[in-house]
């Protein structure tokens, strides 16, 4: 008997656990932990989060949550009169509370070049695929696309005076029997 190969991670995870724990183990964090890679801490979306948004100026929490001793001392000094703070200290306090200033947020970057470049690369690749299709996939064109047939077809359209006011036959000079200049 051939051994059953367990390809689905889900089976070994679900066996003997309840579903909520399994969901955590099945997440990307869980998979990486099982495979022994370094795990990035997943976001806990149930507590207030910090975010830089141009339309919402004051985030729910300060940016730096765990202050080092230097920052702790600065926070103590902040409790006193602010006139005693130097400009560098004020900036340091700002950077504790905020990650990006409005100037940082609004700064333009070169991302558009990457986007445009990638887009054009893929469009170019698609062009190659389309060319290959026309060369190797499409059936032969119908006989009605031959030059001779198309000439006869155009002659018939002119004989019928199709769209004589603004369309096809309007471009033909019936007196001189040629296309209008």
């Amino acid at each position, binding site marked *: 008997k051939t051994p059953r190969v367990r390809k689905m991670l889900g089976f070994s995870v679900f066996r003997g656990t309840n579903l909520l724990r399994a969901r955590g183990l099945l997440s990307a964090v869980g998979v990486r932990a099982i495979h022994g890679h370094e795990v990035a801490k997943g976001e806990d979306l149930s507590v207030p989060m910090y975010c830089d948004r141009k339309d919402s100026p004051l985030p729910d929490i300060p940016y730096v949550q765990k202050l080092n001793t230097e920052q702790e001392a600065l926070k103590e000094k902040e409790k006193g009169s602010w006139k005693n703070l130097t400009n560098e200290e004020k900036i340091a306090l700002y950077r504790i509370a905020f990650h990006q200033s409005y100037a940082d947020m609004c700064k333009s970057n070169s991302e558009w070049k990457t986007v445009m470049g990638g887009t054009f690369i893929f469009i170019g690749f698609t062009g190659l695929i389309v060319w290959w299709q026309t060369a190797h996939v499409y059936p032969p064109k119908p006989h009605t696309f031959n030059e001779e047939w198309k000439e006869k077809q155009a002659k*018939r359209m002119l*004989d*019928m*005076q199709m769209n*004589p*006011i*603004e369309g096809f036959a309007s471009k033909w000079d*019936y007196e001189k029997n040629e296309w209008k200049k």
Partner: protein
Amino acid sequence: MSSVIAKPAMRGLLAKRLRFHLAVAFTLSIACAGAFKVAVGDSRKKAYADFYKKYDAMKSFEAMRDAGIFESVKPRK
């Protein structure tokens, strides 16, 4: 201490923007409609009028007949 700056506008920002953009929108729409009327509508009416001034239906029919496109009438020799 830096000098005190003027208090920025706190209210009526949307109204101010709308006043400007509404005027622009109306002007542009009317201009587009006018341009379309002249360039497309009037020129088309003129083309039709000019065509039918000189149009002879019977002559046109005989030309088509002689070209041999009809099945009910054969070309005159």
